């Protein structure tokens, strides 16, 4: 009739739940440490994820292997030209880059103009315009709510059509109607709206896409009377090409054409998205590392707290354990009681920690609009629970040892 090692059946279960439920205060106290540790860890992980996805929205739709080139005043004298000379990128530079740097898949110009205002009836909003070609979509993928983006024919035929950003659509069409086919005035020219781009990307060449009016570059060119010069050139590398390696080559091609000192880094502004993305990636890796550090620290502090409380509890239960020993409990019985109580408490408190953090993260997700992901995944929760279990086991060692060393005589002494 002797019990086996760590037997677990309905009797043991009742024995454990009774001990926990009938000593609510200390169960709550111990459980709270576990609950809080797990909650904090998961909440931090979820929060980190949310911040990351919030920030990543700024990069959404933007080709990560792209590069943007713009002209700036020279800072070095070269070939008889003195420093401080203004120069412009030109349409010919596009062809030149395509031929001389075959690793580039797309090379496309952009003509920006700032400080405009868009008007429709009584509605008015400040905006900026950019003239692009149809292949610009490869640089910055639009996310069309209504209509379509510009196409080759729009550009060729110099159609006075435009794609408007989300802010402009909201300001000029406050009813939220489909604006396609309607006319808006930008500057002094009327354009027909053909689409609404709601892309959230904040890496924008020439200002936020929410506040921009995108026109065929040919229309823009006539409007600005800009001749052969272009504001910026965007280029995308072919798959597998490292843009940082191409940067030097691109600079060289441009510099030679425009008589710029090849060492004059500031004359040719090059914005390498790949570098930006790499910086962001590193940043997030750092943030994640920090989150895990803090989270595990919290969990560890929780575990130490639990260990402490359990030590006090065992001290408080000396008489009870002594009585149990006197009436026939073996040290193993006591150990299994303490350990199983700990396990039961960990499971209950740990799951509530998970549930609570999941609920709170879900709430954040609802508040933080669409596409922001705060929620932790199942694997993360399980990993955290496992980690907690391990820590709980470690935390339980000292109290369990003390409990096992309680002699039945202690029950009588401890009055």
């Amino acid at each position: 009739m002797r019990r086996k090692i760590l037997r677990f059946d309905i009797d043991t279960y009742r024995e454990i739940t009774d001990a926990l439920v009938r000593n609510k205060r200390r169960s709550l106290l111990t459980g709270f440490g576990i609950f809080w540790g797990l909650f904090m860890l998961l909440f931090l992980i979820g929060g980190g994820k949310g911040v990351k996805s919030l920030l990543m929205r700024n990069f959404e739709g933007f080709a990560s292997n792209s590069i943007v080139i713009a002209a700036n005043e020279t800072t070095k004298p070269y070939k008889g030209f003195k420093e401080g000379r203004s120069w412009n990128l030109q349409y010919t530079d596009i062809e030149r880059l395509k031929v001389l740097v075959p690793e580039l898949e797309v090379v496309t110009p952009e003509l920006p103009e700032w400080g405009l205002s868009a008007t429709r009836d009584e509605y008015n909003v400040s905006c900026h315009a950019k003239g692009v070609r149809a292949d610009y979509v490869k640089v910055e993928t639009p996310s069309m709510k209504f209509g379509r983006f510009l196409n080759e024919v729009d550009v060729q035929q110099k159609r006075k059509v435009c794609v408007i950003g989300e802010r402009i659509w909201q300001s000029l069409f406050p009813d939220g109607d489909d604006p396609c086919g309607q006319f808006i005035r930008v500057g002094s020219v009327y354009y027909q709206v053909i689409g609404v781009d709601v892309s959230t990307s904040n890496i924008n060449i020439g200002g936020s896409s929410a506040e921009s009016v995108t026109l065929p570059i040919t229309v823009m060119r006539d409007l600005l009377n800009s001749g052969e010069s272009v504001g910026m050139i965007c280029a995308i590398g072919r798959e597998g090409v490292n843009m940082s390696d191409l940067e030097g080559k691109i600079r060289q091609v441009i510099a030679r054409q425009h008589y710029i000192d090849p060492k004059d880094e500031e004359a040719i502004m090059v914005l390498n998205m790949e570098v930006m993305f790499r910086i962001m990636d590193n940043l997030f890796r750092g943030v994640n590392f920090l989150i895990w550090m803090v989270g595990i620290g919290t969990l560890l502090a929780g575990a130490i707290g639990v260990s402490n409380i359990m030590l006090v509890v065992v001290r408080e239960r000396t008489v009870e354990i002594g009585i149990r020993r006197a009436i026939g409990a073996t040290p193993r019985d006591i150990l299994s009681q303490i350990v199983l109580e700990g396990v039961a408490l960990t499971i209950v408190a740990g799951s509530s920690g998970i549930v609570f953090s999941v609920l709170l993260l879900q709430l954040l997700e609802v508040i933080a609009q669409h596409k922001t992901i705060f929620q932790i995944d199942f694997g993360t929760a399980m990993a955290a629970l496992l980690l907690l279990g391990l820590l709980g086991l470690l935390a339980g060692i000292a109290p369990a040892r003390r409990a096992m060393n309680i002699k039945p005589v202690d029950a009588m002494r401890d009055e």
Partner: protein
Amino acid sequence: MLIELHNIHKTYDNGQPLHVLKGIDLGIEQGEFVSIMGASGSGKSTLLNILGILDNYDEGEYWLDGKLIKNLSEKEAAHYRNQMIGFVFQSFNLINFKTAVENVELPLYYQGFGRKKRNELAMRYLEHFGLAEWATHYPNELSGGQKQRVAIARALITNPRILLADEPTGALDSKTSVEVMNLLTDLNRTEKVTIIVVTHESGVANCTDKIIHIKDGIIGETTMNEQHKASVFGTSTIMK
């Protein structure tokens, strides 16, 4: 002989060695009702702990029901305690968060009985002691006498060979003390339970059939007390 002690020595070593038991020889037969009397510090509690396999001894031999109880592992000791010995303590030592019936059935839990069987047996014992209606009450809802009766029920439920009572009336008033001693006497007479009572009260000792005096770690005189006239305060009294 149910209990045989030969030349038991016990020394506590808490910084300074303290020789508590200095050669105890003792024999107790099945069905006896014995008290061990002595002043505090005489070694009677130590003797009780050794009899109850709660403590080890350094020298000598202790035979309980034909088994040598010496250098047992914690597990074996727990096993023997569970099977052969019932304890009744001065402060009752009931588990506070368990009801009366749960306290009584606890020893059976450690023997591996199922819940239903345990409960049935425990209820039978509680009924026997007139506590059936208090079965679902917690210890702090019971009077001292009731608590001690629950404790006695718990001690007896495993059908032990000996019942060890350490100052069973120490925390009770004189009226309940008489009740508890009568209960023990009754158990001895009708159920033939071997009972050893440790006390320093002559009145309590007077209720038993044999009084073993212990002084300074050795057995002094043993008084046969079938007539219960040992108390200087007369028969049937419990000095308080």
